Each structure stands twice: as structure tokens, then as C-alpha cells.
């Protein structure tokens, strides 16, 4: 043990120059000590070889995995070719379905209502105004009560843009299309910061789907695009479809 520590100190270059010379001299003069040093070197070599053997095994595993993944890539490429052909057919069929087959305007309107008229944004202020009360009723699913609330506001102020807009939305949800159209028509030309009344009117027409409603809705959408009004992008998207 003591000699091992001494031998290690030499090979770790921890001995002063004088002791290093003594160490080398001891190898020459002391056969047993020389054998111990030789064993230390042999052991170190064999341990290193074992270590490298383990590392090579690990490398082999990695290499095989990499090659397997490359082979799999080849199979995947073939699958991809077939998949791409299948996908192309699906795209053609769906392309025809979406762009050539006439679109259901009612479906478009339904999707819009589903997406944007699910709830109405209520003011975060602790003090609710009368419009917020109507919106809360709407959000609670109390549509007739909400309509009553908005109409009460309109009765006191017939120019209340927000109340008229929400009265139109509630009427649309209640499938009272004529009433909804009347409300939206009242405000469609109001100069306010954001006025989506034209597209709401178009949606109402698309939902009602009476004779001529589709054409009228289309005309409203074209007006939105031409005049760069609110929901221009939606109007453009819808008009790209075959009506």
C-alpha cells in the first residue's frame, strides 16, 4: 500500500526532482520495488484497455442505432412517397370540395357566430354600466332578458351604438333575423372607431338564407372590402369561396 502511494506520486508528477531520481534509482537497485512499479504500470494499462473496450462497445451501440435509424429512414422515404401520392389525391378531392363545390353560407355564418358570439366581453371595472348588465345576462344564457335590457337602454337613448349592436346580436342568436337586420341597419353607417355592423348584417342574411339574401350578403362583403371596413379579411376569405 505504502509503495503504491509512492509509485502513484511519482507518475502523478508529485515528487520533487530529488525524490524522482531516488525513485528511479530504487527501480535499478531494488528488484521487488521494480516489480511493484511494473505491476502498477501493467495494471494501469489493463484497466485503461478495459475502459476503452467498454467505450468501444458503447460506440458500437450508438453506431448501430444510427445505422438502423438510417435504414428506417429509407423505409420511411418509401412510405413517404406513397403517403405523398395519397395526400395529393386527398388535397385534390378536398380542394374540389372546398373551392369548386359551392360553399354553404349558413355554415360560414354558424362558424362565425360560434366563434365570436359565444360570450360578450364585460368591463373589468367594479362598477358595471347598463350595457354590461345586458352582456352579463347574455353570457348567462338569459337571451330574452339580455334583449330586454339592451332595448331598455335604446328606449332611453335611441343612438346608443353599443346597445343597438348587442340588441342585434341577441336577436340573431334568438333567430329573430328581421329584428337583427333592423338593428344592424340602424348603425351600419355610424362613424365609430370599430363598426362591424355590415358584416353582422351579412351574417344575419346568410343565416336567414331567404331568396336574394345570399346575393345581398355578398354585396355587403364586397362593400366591406372596397371601403376597408371592419372584418375585411373575413369578407375576403369568404368571397374567395364559390357561393
Amino acid at each position, binding site marked *: *500500500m505504502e509503495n*503504491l*502511494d509512492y509509485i*502513484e506520486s511519482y*507518475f502523478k*508528477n508529485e515528487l520533487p526532482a530529488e525524490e524522482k531520481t531516488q525513485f*528511479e534509482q530504487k*527501480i*535499478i537497485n531494488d528488484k521487488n520495488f*521494480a*516489480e*511493484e*512499479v*511494473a*505491476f*502498477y*504500470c*501493467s*495494471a*494501469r*494499462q*489493463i*484497466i*485503461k*484497455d*478495459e*475502459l*476503452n473496450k*467498454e*467505450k*468501444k462497445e*458503447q*460506440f*458500437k451501440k*450508438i*453506431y448501430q442505432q*444510427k445505422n438502423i435509424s438510417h435504414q428506417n429512414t429509407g423505409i420511411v422515404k418509401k412510405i413517404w412517397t406513397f403517403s405523398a401520392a395519397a395526400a395529393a389525391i386527398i388535397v385534390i378531392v378536398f380542394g374540389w370540395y372546398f373551392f369548386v363545390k359551392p360553399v354553404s353560407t349558413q355554415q360560414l355564418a354558424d362558424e362565425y357566430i360560434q366563434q365570436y358570439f359565444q360570450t360578450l366581453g364585460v368591463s373589468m371595472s367594479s362598477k358595471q354600466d347598463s350595457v354590461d348588465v345586458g352582456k352579463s345576462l347574455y353570457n348567462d344564457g338569459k337571451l330574452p332578458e339580455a334583449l330586454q335590457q339592451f332595448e331598455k337602454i335604446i328606449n332611453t337613448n335611441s343612438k346608443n351604438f353599443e346597445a343597438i349592436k348587442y340588441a342585434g346580436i341577441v336577436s340573431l342568436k334568438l333567430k329573430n333575423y328581421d329584428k337583427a337586420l333592423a338593428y344592424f341597419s340602424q348603425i351600419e353607417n355610424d362613424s365609430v372607431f370599430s363598426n362591424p355592423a355590415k358584416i353582422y348584417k351579412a351574417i344575419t342574411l346568410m343565416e336567414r338564407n331567404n331568396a336574394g339574401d345570399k346575393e345581398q350578403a355578398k354585396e355587403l362583403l364586397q362593400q366591406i372590402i372596397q371601403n376597408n371596413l371592419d372584418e375585411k379579411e373575413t369578407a375576403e376569405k369568404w368571397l374567395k369561396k364559390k357561393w
Partner: protein
Amino acid sequence: MPPTPTMSNTILLHKASDGELINNLKGTGIDKKKAEEQLFTTYSYFIKEGERKYKLSHEDIFDAYADAALAVIEKIKDDSFKGLSSIKTYLYQVFHNKCVDLLRKKTTNKQSVHQTASITESMFELSDSAKSIINKLMEKTDFDLLKQKLNELGDNCRQLLLLWADGYSDKEIVAELTYKTADVVKTTRLRCMDKLRQLYNTKLY
């Protein structure tokens, strides 16, 4: 000239520059292990290139490449790699030399000659007369038996000695294994070496 890397290899190269790879190789633990695997993987396309160029079996070329990768890792760890060329160029040169050695051995039918353990780097520090004595004594070593005894030492000793041979300091081994202090690691490690010697000598005499 080293062969042109594939796109994926180039991406890997960009992911870790030589500098980053060198730093990680000089480190310890999982980062070091990952860096070693990364060095091996990044240039493993040399294997296919070697198979075409040297007309040797896949096993031979793989061994030559793995040995070359391990040699380069060792050179980087002990600061012998001075960064005068890129790791790729350096590794390719080492790999090429190993393949040429292999070809020479094959053509001169020398592969069956018994190979003694190579002189460890540290032995070069010995004076010529001392080195000559140690070399002669090492030639008498039964390396197969020593290897067998190493595997009989038990997992704890074996693992400890492998980490030591991998260049881990006793302090770093504390972090890797469940020893309390570096001193305990050193004492245990020297005891393991002593035990190995006893096992080897018992069988030998």
C-alpha cells in the same frame, strides 16, 4: 483530405464547435460522456469512407475508427492536442494511420504476432535505465490473467479503477460514486490495486 461531411454531420458540427467539444471532453460526468459520443458520432461517416478506400472489413475499419476516436479524446484530455488543426482533420489523420497500420499487418501477415501492452504515457518520464527494467518486467506480465483478475475484483473496485483510468481525480470520483471524501476514494482505490496484485500473484505463484 478528410471526406466531405454529409448535411447532418455539418449540422452537428455547427451545433458544437471544436472549442465547446474540447471543453466538454476535459470536463467530467455526463457532459464528458456526451462529448465523447458526440465526437465519435459526428465523424462516424469516416467508417464508410474507410471501407471504400482501404478495402478492409467493416469490423476492422470500425475498430480503427473507434480506436482513433479514443486516441484523439485522450490527446485532447491530456492537452497533447494543441489545436493546430481542426478535430476533424486530426481525427482523420489518426484514423488514416491506424488503417495503414492495419493494411501493413494484413499484407505482411503480422496480425497473429502477440501484442504486448503499449508503454503508458507516464512511463516516458522514467530514466532510460529504469524504463528498460520496467519494460522487461512488463513483458513478463500475463495480461490475460490480469484482465481476468480485474473482473474478479467486484463491481465497486472495478468501477472505481475505471474512473481513475479515465482521468477522474479522487475529488471528481466523490461526485460520481458514493464516497464521502477524496481521501476515502484514494485509500479505497489503492486498496483495490493492492487486492488486484494479491489476486494476480496468488494465481501466478
